């Protein structure tokens, strides 16, 4: 169990935690990149998902979702490497690649959420004289919150989990610890880095689970459980 001892030694060295290349600094960088990627993806995916769900285009909308889902087969590593080879290195490339990765998840959950709103409810809203904007803002979005929250939680956790790949192509974040360890064949460090990234993901997921509970109105919480399962 030499590797485990090495990993414990690495984790116990305060110099690995503080300073510009330390775990704390890398975590900060990691979370900032996550935030940027999720914001970038949300700005496009959420309005598009709302619009597709709201307009109930049927087949056309389904095709968009299928197309978006197919991009899941596109390896994030490939996007990162293609961007790097095209001359876009570092954190910007990482954020773009992670945003591309986050896009289909956000799009399909938003779409499913808005589309799942009972047509009788939107009909009633329209009958009360609400315009399209108000139907979306006051009726469809609030009712889609469970799906949106579940989708955002899944997306954020997956982005936190994907960003480490960027380190293979010279990007920042916590993946650096792992990729440096592989490069120098220090497997204790690799193990330590793997554990740190895994713990960060579990922590983020836990915090978001609480946030998801907080933003979901109690009346739709039962449905939210079903939504979380479906995502």
């Amino acid at each position, binding site marked *: 169990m030499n590797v485990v001892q090495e990993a414990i030694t690495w984790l116990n060295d305060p110099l690995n935690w503080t300073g510009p290349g330390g775990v704390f600094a890398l975590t900060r960088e990691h979370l900032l990149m996550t935030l940027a990627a999720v914001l970038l993806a949300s700005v496009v995916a959420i309005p598009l998902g709302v619009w597709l769900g709201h307009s109930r285009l049927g087949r056309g909308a389904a095709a968009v979702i299928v197309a978006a889902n197919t991009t899941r087969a596109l*390896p*994030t*590593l*490939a996007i990162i490497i293609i961007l790097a080879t095209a001359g876009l290195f570092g954190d910007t490339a990482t954020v773009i690649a992670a945003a591309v990765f986050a896009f289909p998840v956000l799009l399909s959950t938003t779409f499913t959420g808005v589309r799942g709103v009972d047509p009788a409810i939107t009909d009633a809203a329209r009958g009360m004289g609400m315009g399209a904007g108000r139907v979306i803002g006051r009726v469809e979005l609030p009712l889609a919150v469970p799906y949106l929250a579940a989708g955002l939680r899944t997306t954020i956790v997956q982005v936190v*989990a994907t960003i480490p790949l960027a380190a*293979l192509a010279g990007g920042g974040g916590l993946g650096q610890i*792992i990729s440096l360890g592989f490069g120098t064949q220090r497997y204790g460090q690799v193990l330590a880095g793997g554990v740190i990234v895994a713990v960060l993901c579990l922590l983020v997921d836990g915090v978001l689970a609480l946030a998801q509970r907080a933003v979901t109105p109690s009346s739709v919480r039962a449905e939210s459980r079903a939504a979380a399962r479906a995502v």
Partner: protein
Amino acid sequence: MPGNPWFSWDYVTANWDAIREALVIHASLTVEAVAIAIVVSLPLAALATRVRWLAAPVVGFASTLYTIPSLALFAILAPFMGIGRAPVLLGLVLYALVVLVRTAVAALQGVDPAVLDAARGLGYGRARRFWTVELPSALPGILTGVRLATVSTVALVTVGVVVGYGGLGNLLFRGFQSFYRAEIMTATVLCLLLALVLDVLLWLLGRALTPWLRGRAA
């Protein structure tokens, strides 16, 4: 740098042997991982639907496992299992398993209890009811899970490059190190094609296995 095109047919013909080898590794890893995951996940899912209190921990454990990043998982496995095929395969099986268990549990739980009651009323035993009623009813949901697992496994294999065994990921990374655009693009396109081909095959298999759904609006 004169002439470093993204697409180059010359590259493909000149390096076909290496490309084919990577493609075969990639495809066999994917198929093997998903096949093992199916064999393991179905009994787990069946057990989780039968023993009610098991469902939450099984799905919870699967979700927890899924939040662990692939790079981290390979990083955790590699020191113990060495470099090569074994850690990659185990990692892929674990991720596919997580997807399959979650979808299979949802699919089995979604089977109409009235249908199961009817089967019981007709005198079906437990085993016969499972194989002839419950499993076929849940099959569309299970197959959706298999397709999802397959497509994401194809993408995930590339990460195996960190332990030296990533199929097309090896080409991707080699292309990155030598700044060879055609190699990177070829590997990426082949990944997408492989995923597409496997997805279509599974879709056809699904249609063949569920003839009773064919008449309905797809």
